[in-house]
């Protein structure tokens, strides 16, 4: 989670490496987009209204469908979440914890905005 400037690229931490996804400007604040990772997993990327970026696993653990990137963003008690578009469970974007069922967590990725090497 980080603030970014224009022209910057969005990067995810995968192990010790940073994986460049796309221009941060490709994302629309309040919405998400899915990214395909080198290992075949999918990440859901989001920007909040202040331009902060987040990334969690794209797979909705309640249905198995890769759809979290298509949910709506919201915030409650200062925590930014995405609501799954299928059954509406909310996931904290920083930790990946499901706010409606704390026993369930999706993977959360460290995100940074690099200068597009």
């Amino acid at each position: 989670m980080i603030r970014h400037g224009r022209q910057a690229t969005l990067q995810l931490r995968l192990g010790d490496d940073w994986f460049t996804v796309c221009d941060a400007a490709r994302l629309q604040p309040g919405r998400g987009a899915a990214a395909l990772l080198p290992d075949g997993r999918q990440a859901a990327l989001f920007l909040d209204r202040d331009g902060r970026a987040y990334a969690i696993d794209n797979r909705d653990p309640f249905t198995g469908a890769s759809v979290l990137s298509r949910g709506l963003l919201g915030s409650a008690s200062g925590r930014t979440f995405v609501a799954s578009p299928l059954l509406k469970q909310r996931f904290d974007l920083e930790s990946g914890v499901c706010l409606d069922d704390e026993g369930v967590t999706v993977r959360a990725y460290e995100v940074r905005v690099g200068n597009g090497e």
Partner: protein
Amino acid sequence: MPDATPEAMPATTTGARSAGTAGATSAGTAGATSSTPGTRPTLLLVGHGMVGQRFLEALVERGVTDSHHVVVLCEEPRPAYDRVHLTSYFEGKGADELSLTPGGFMDTHGIELRLGERAERIDREARTVTGGSGRVYAYDTLVLATGSYPFVPPVPGKDAEGCFVYRTIEDLEAIEAYAKGAGRGAVVGGGLLGLEAAGALKGLGLATRIVEFAPRLMPAQVDEGGGAALLRTIERMGLTVHTGAGTEAVVTDEDGRVSGMRLTDGSELPTDLVVFSAGVRPRDQLAREAGLKVGERGGISVDEECRTSDPAVFAIGECAQTVDGKVYGLVAPGYAMAEAAADAIAGFPGSFTGADMSTKLKLLGVDVASFGDAHGTAEGCLDVVYADSRSGTYKKLVMDPEGVLLGGVLVGDAEAYGMLRPLTGSVPPVAPEQLVLPAGAGGPVKLGPDALPDDAIICSCHNVTKGQICACGTLPEVKQCTKAGTGCGSCVKTILQLLPQTGDKGLCGCFSYTRAELYEIVKVKRITSYARLLDEHGREEARGGEGCEICKPTFASVLASLAPAIGADGYVLEGEQAALQDTNDHFLANMQRNGSYSIVPRIPGGEITPEKLIVIGEVARDFGLYTKITGGQRIDLFGARSDQLPAIWTRLVAAGFESGHAYGKALRTVKSCVGQTWCRYGVQDSVRMAIDLELRYRGLRAPHKLKSAVSGCARECAEAQSKDFGVIATASGWNLYVGGNGGMTPRHADLLAQDLTDAELIRLIDRFLMFYIRTADRLERTASWLERLEGGLDHLREVIVEDSLGICEELESLMAAHVAGYRDEWAETLQDPERLARFESFVNAPGTPDPTVRFVAERDQMKPDLAVLIPEGALTTR
């Protein structure tokens, strides 16, 4: 019943895994029973089922996992799972989803869980338990939660290949595998579990029979009338039921496989598979052999603290016979026993003296509930019975002569259970017949949970009162703080009804205003930006935040309705509006369970040319889509990936189709019959009117979806009276009906006005729709809106026919602006390459399809491949 033998399933340990802390010694050193690492005493739990897990949670809550070293022996290969909802395993719920054990639970609390380890022998003198692996586990305190086993009647052939019981996930897997080569199945037992099992067999595609020894189904829970209602409904589903018949023998073929059953009434029926589900018996063998006292009819005798005849040994759940002499086969009493035993071990007061046997279930899709003195055994008690064999509804209340509610039975419609059970033992605040009559039959009864006292038990699984629930703010909070609603789940509806009265009527956590109030704010202040609405009119704590998934689409809908009047763009994906839409509106298609989308082109009035039909067929064929005719006289195309939507719609738009708004809270369809043009009974041109109405109101965003229909005569073939607004032709014009609904809570529409001309009809519908859009709550259909509207239909008539509020001109001009401003969302979207980029599956790999959206064949078409959705480590838990 497949037991996990040590050979097949070596004992494995999860949880605290330091060997040095294990309270176990190998068989070779049996007798070496110095039990504890350090000074902590060892608590050994035998059995990790639902009650066992609840017991562990109760220990954690009382700090016993800190003061004791806790070891659990679990015979099954997996930790505790939800046996109550076992049937949902066949409905696609995996073992992971049924699990009741949060990942990391054992680790966090230092509990040592030994899976696949069956307890074989208790040595009370040495205070040890020997496991199937040969290991010896020492204890200071032993808790038996061994549950029960399915009772299999001792009939010839009971062990033949093709005979099963229904208790564990392994049982289900065995049944599922065997059913693949079978066509017919029979269930012995028509009780709760038997019906569950029958539902599972039916779901596996078997022609299913139920054989029940008693003269009716569910003899323990329902009375004769309830059993009869249940029987009719179940037979209507295509199951065959034999009551009053016992099983004499299972018949086998020459290979020793099940081929049929012989009943005690002399009849013989063919079947490929038999599931015994004729009740359960307490598993008290271990205790018996150890010399613990057991009840005459089974069950380990325990006192109020759930302590057995040996003070160091406790028994809880279905294996125990409690102080009231009963063996409880339901989960709620088991949970209560778990709490009582945990209290005793922790040194707190607590006791179990008996439990409420109330239960509410959905069996084969039929609601069945029974509570209190359901059979009317109290002396001098009286019945109030409502029965409707057409709908399969049966409701009986048992009262005492003073009017105190003692209990009851509900079959087919158990909606009232949430209210009635807590009222048991008191005189209900309204006449008893009003509690069982269907809505609308006995005058308005507004008996909400408000009527309940604070100490009324709302969640009987976890014994949570109304007062405790009302102390929380939201459902997740209630679940977290009180556990209410996390057991059988039947109380969740009542909990939701309780919550708003503790707070406000605000739309969501972001706004203290209702949707109708927000509509007025947006209109008067001409607010076209969500951020502005939130920052200026949101709750203090929500300002500057992200908003939420409830108020964002609500604002988007209000904005779409008001756009022309307040100078906003009417295109729902314009600028910031795009970020507010639910995924369906965002992709202009309906998301289905595997993340693919379905597409419904508009077919006004259900009238379509052969050329257009051919285009739909070609598009479906070329993109490999599953096609199905909808209830609204349209065609639904399923299975498109998001990145395919633009190409599909390019073809459809070129052929003259436009969005059908099946994805939106908007006008869906105006259904019609062929009317006067073809039908010998028709008195008006219903198809033309349906097309006119559909084209007029297409794209109109509303608090919920809107459906309509036009019938060409009073025979009503278009079913207009089940629609939000329905039109029926008369010899001299049109009758307008409003507030109808099908679906979950059907409601016949009310006649608003008669014999209208075309122009009068349209003007009245304009006003009706705009008044609804302006005043309804979020997701409130016209039916419930009209029910809620103070003054009801008369008030509606005053406002929109007589213009008592003087707003009709405004309502009409709003609609005129909508009609003039209508643009097809798909045509507009296709024109903008930037918008089309949003449909790509991956932002970093344009053109790459989502590999998790896959399909398999079924009946010459395709369906979602759900197997690809359950990969490794699917449900990661903390």
